[in-house]
């Protein structure tokens, strides 16, 4: 599903990623871990095309990213749900509208949008917060809104960048459970985290990254 071959990304004098090669299979749930600044976020950004690799090739499903036309990028992104580290929720829109945005860009009717958003809000246990604004929600609730927005379009890949950053242990465990459930439905899930508790005893593959290089692999 996701294939990195000798991928490097260099920012001015600093190499964020160096000669990275790995694969994530379709339907797999895997973790990328490493200290802050190791290159986890850059790796995810390359997958959702926020950044371009300077060397190497990246393939997502049947899409070879270097050969992808710029006008096709939106259509690839619709297949990738992203849980952003900084949430990227719009403060001037309520929970419903924040999630609905991912469907409206696909040109869905308001009826379909309403049906799907309410369904996904039920999945993340936030149906009662549909009319609330992001700033009135707790960190965990905001995180669940972001997950809801990422999965509402039924993507084939779900990426999560430090999804439990500032959350307490119980909330973090709940988020991990949610990812497992999403993965169980067939979605490929890749989670970047420095929180070892998140993948301990999950039985999932964990890629260790440090200083822009994959330094090891283990089972969580």
């Amino acid at each position, binding site marked *: 599903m996701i294939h990195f071959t000798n991928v490097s990304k260099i920012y001015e004098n600093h190499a964020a990623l160096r000669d990275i090669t790995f694969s994530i299979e379709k339907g797999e749930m895997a973790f990328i871990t490493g200290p802050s600044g190791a290159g986890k976020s850059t790796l995810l950004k390359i997958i*959702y*095309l*926020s*950044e*371009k690799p300077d060397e190497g090739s990246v393939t997502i499903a049947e899409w070879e990213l270097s050969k992808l036309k*710029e*006008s096709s*990028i*939106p*259509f*690839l*992104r*619709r297949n990738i749900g*992203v849980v*952003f580290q900084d949430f*990227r929720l*719009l403060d001037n829109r309520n929970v419903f509208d924040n999630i609905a*945005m*991912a469907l*409206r*860009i*696909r*040109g*869905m*009717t308001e009826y379909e949008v309403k049906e799907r958003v309410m369904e996904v809000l039920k999945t993340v246990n936030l149906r009662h917060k549909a009319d609330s604004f992001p700033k009135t929600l707790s960190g965990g609730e905001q995180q669940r809104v972001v997950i809801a*927005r990422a999965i509402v*379009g039924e993507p084939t890949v779900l990426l999560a960048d430090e999804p439990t950053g500032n959350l307490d242990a119980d909330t973090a465990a709940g988020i991990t459970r949610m990812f497992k459930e999403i993965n169980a439905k067939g979605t490929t899930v890749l989670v970047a985290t420095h929180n070892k508790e998140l993948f301990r005893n999950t039985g999932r593959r964990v890629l260790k990254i440090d200083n822009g290089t994959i330094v090891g692999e283990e089972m969580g």
Partner: protein
Amino acid sequence: MYILYSLRLAIQSVWHEKWINLLSVLTIAAGLFMITLTFFSVYNMDLATKKLPEKFSMMLYLNNDLSEQEVGNIMSTLKKNIAVERARYISKDKALEELKGVLKNADYVLEGINENPLPASIEVKLRQESVSISKVKKLAADIRKIKGIEEVEYGEQFLNSIHSIKAGAQTLGLLMISVMSTGVIFVCYSTVKIMFYRRKEEIETFKLLGATRGFIRAPFVIEGGILGIGGGVVSLIGTMALYYTLFYKLALTMPIFKIIVFPSEVFIALPFVGLALGVSGAVIALGRIRFS
């Protein structure tokens, strides 16, 4: 389907930033009002100069020794010419009679003249479409070749002046309209650009969620269109107010204002002109949207 959503976003944005948008609408309205006034000035000047050919005529002075047959031949040659509307023969006696009519009480200046000094002539009225410098010059040259014509006289200087005034007014009008239109486009451009920067974060999120360029652009283009239409409608109200209060009321006391014509088609066109300029400004402001 997303057009409806874009329309909703555009209306929300117009309302949310109502003061800056109101200012833009008023500026656009002022620009369109100036464009309309310029257009009306040029239009009326054009109309006035179009009426002048009705008064334009050529005088053909004939040789003294022409027979009736020869005069008849000249008249029929002239009438066959496509540029000629009508031709009137003025005999020597008729010319003297008309001169006396013009002089009225000052006809003593003709006392002591035994022989009629005036030549016989033909007054030629031209068709409106033939009253242009080049056509009149060509016609005069053709007429001079007709046997029996001594001299051809027409207001060449007058014709040149009219042409220069008309061309000058049209050029100035076009220049004014171009400058004002550019100004209106610039106002829309600036407003949309400001809106675009204010919503930069939101647009970035749209992009990351998979929005196409069309989806991102649509609300801004609609917003530019709304501003343009708004400006058009306000300038339409201003123009109508000017027409009905100023010209209509002034015409009652000063009939000269009655000759001013306001073509109603322009009133209807104003919101559409505003729409076109608003959309153009927005499209230029958005430029090329990049995804990576």
